[in-house]
C-alpha cells in the first residue's frame, strides 16, 4: 500500500528483546559503621589507592571503632581476571569478617 506522498506504510516491530534479569534485593544496610569492618574493593584504576586512604582517614575520625580491610587483600576486581575475582569475593569477605564494602572506581 502506497499513499500519495510515496512514503509507504509499514508496521514496524520492536527491535529489542525483553530484559531477562529479574530484580534482586539489596543486602540489608547497617545501623552504624561504628565497630564494623569495611572492605575496600578496587579495580586498580583512577587513584583508588589514594581515595581509600582518604576515606579510611575520614571514617575513622567519625567512627573510631571502624576497621578496614585493604584492597591489597582482594586483588583487582576488574581486568582480565574479573570473572574469577568476583566469584571468589563472597568467601573472601566472609573470611575477613567484613560487614560492608566500598567499591571503586567508576570514572
Amino acid at each position, binding site marked *: 500500500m502506497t499513499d500519495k506522498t510515496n512514503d509507504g506504510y509499514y508496521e*514496524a516491530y520492536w527491535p529489542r528483546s525483553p530484559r531477562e*534479569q529479574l530484580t534482586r534485593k539489596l543486602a540489608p544496610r547497617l545501623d552504624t559503621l561504628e565497630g564494623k569492618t569495611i572492605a575496600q574493593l578496587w579495580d586498580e584504576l*583512577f587513584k583508588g589507592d589514594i*581515595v581509600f586512604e582518604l576515606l579510611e582517614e575520614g571514617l575513622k575520625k567519625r567512627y573510631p571503632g571502624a576497621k578496614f580491610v585493604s584492597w591489597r587483600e582482594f586483588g583487582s576486581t576488574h581486568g582480565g581476571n574479573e570473572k574469577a575475582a568476583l566469584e571468589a*569475593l563472597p568467601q573472601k569477605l566472609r573470611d575477613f569478617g567484613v560487614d560492608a564494602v566500598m567499591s571503586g572506581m567508576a570514572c
Partner: protein
Amino acid sequence: MLRASAACEAAGFPTSSLTCEGFVKQAAVTAVGLGMPNIPVAVVPGHIGTKTPQELHDAILNVTMDDVVNNLTVTPAPIAKAGEPQAREIVVKGGFRAVNQYFVEHEYSDGLPIVPPTRDAIDEFLRYTDRDPEESLGTPLPDKRSATIWSIAVNGVMAGCRPEYMPLLVALVEAMCDPNYGVEHSGNTPGADTLIILNGPIIKQLGFNYTQGALRDGFLPNTSVGRFWRLYLRNVAGFLLHKTDKATYGNTWRVVLAENEDLLAKIGWEPNSVEMGFKAGDNTVTIARYTGGGSLSSVSGSTPEEMLPYLADTVERFNNWQITFTTSHGMGTLRPLIVISPIIAETLAKAGWSKLDVKRYIFEHARRPAHDFERQLRVWNIRGVWDLKADVLAGRIPKVFYESDDPNRLVPIVWKPEDYMIAVTGDPLRNNAYVFAQNGFLGYPTGKKIHLPENWEH
C-alpha cells in the same frame, strides 16, 4: 566496579560504589541490567584524574564520604521497573518518515534512516537460518536482554542488510555473547569500536569487498553488516550514548574487513580463520575492539629486512596507552592487528617468510624503553601502584619485561609473537598497511564459524 558491588550485595554485603560525577547516569542504567536498580553510589565530584591532591582530599572528605555513610546505613528506596513493549510487538505503524522518526525518538536508531522491520522483511531473514526464532544466544550486558534469532533478523533488516547475510549475523551475535570477548566493556570511555574480520568462501558468495578500498563504506555487505553490529549493541546489548555508552570519542561503525584469500592461498599463508582455530576454507567471523590505529603509507623495500623496520616502528608507536593490557591488570591480552596489502605479503612470502616469522620480527623489534613503558601507565595514565619489576617478580608477567635493572632496556609491548594478528587485504598493487590498536580484554579477539542453512546452495 558496579559488577563487583552487585556480587557483594547478592552475597549479603551492603555496598557503596565510588563513582565519578560523569558516570552516575551510566551507573543507574547499568544497575537495571544487573537486577539491582537501586544499588547506591557515592559521588566523586568532577573527574578524579584532573584534581590536585588538595582538591581530591576536599572532594572525598566533604562529598563522597557522606554518600558512603548513607549508602551503607540507609536502605535505598525501590525503583519501579519501566514499562516496555513485548517481544514481537509492533511498536509503530505508518509511513517511512513516521517510522524513522519513532525509531530515532525511542533510541532504536543510530541517526541514519533504518529499513522498517516489517513482518515480511523479518521472515525473509529467518528463511536463511535453520534456527528457532525464539532461540536465545545469550543475554549480553548491560541490558541482559535475550539475544534471540528473531531480534537478529529485526536489526539486520533495520541495518539494510540483505536476508542472505543472516547466517553471518547469527555468528556475529554468538561472538558478541562469548564471555571471552567481553561485550560488557563496550561502553567504556576510550570508545573502541569493533572490527569484524570475515573469512571463507562466503566473502565472494555475498560480494564482500576484499581489495582496493578495504575498510571504507561503499559496498553493501561490508557496510550494512558493520552497521548491524552497532545497532545490535544499541538495541539488544543496550549501549546507548549519554547512558551506558561512555565513549569520549568514538567512531562510526567499522565496515567489515574481508581477507584476500586468493592471495593468501597463492603465497601459502594461512588466513586469519586458521589463526583463530578454524580450518582453512571455513566461513568465519572474528571480532575484536580497537581504539583507532593508523595507516603506513608506502612500505618500501624488496626484502623483509627492508620492509619490516617501518612496520615494527609503527606498531610500537600506534599501541600507546593500550600497553596497560600487557601488564598484570590486562593479563597480557593486548592483540594488535596488522593489516597489510597483498603486495607486501607477497614480497615477504617471496623471501620465504611465514606469518609467524613476521610476528617474531615484530615482537623482537616493536619495543620501547622500560622507563617509557612504566611512565606511560604510572605517571601519564591512571595506574598508581604498578611497575614491570614487581609484576615479573610476582610471576604475573613474562620475564622478558625485567631482564635487568637498566631503565633503558627494551621491552616488548605484548607477551609473545603469537599475540600479534595479521590480516591481508586492501589494494593488491599498493604497498600500504594499517595498524590497529587493540583493547585487550575489553574486546578480546573472538572467532565463530558461520553455519549455513541446509538450503544455502539454492
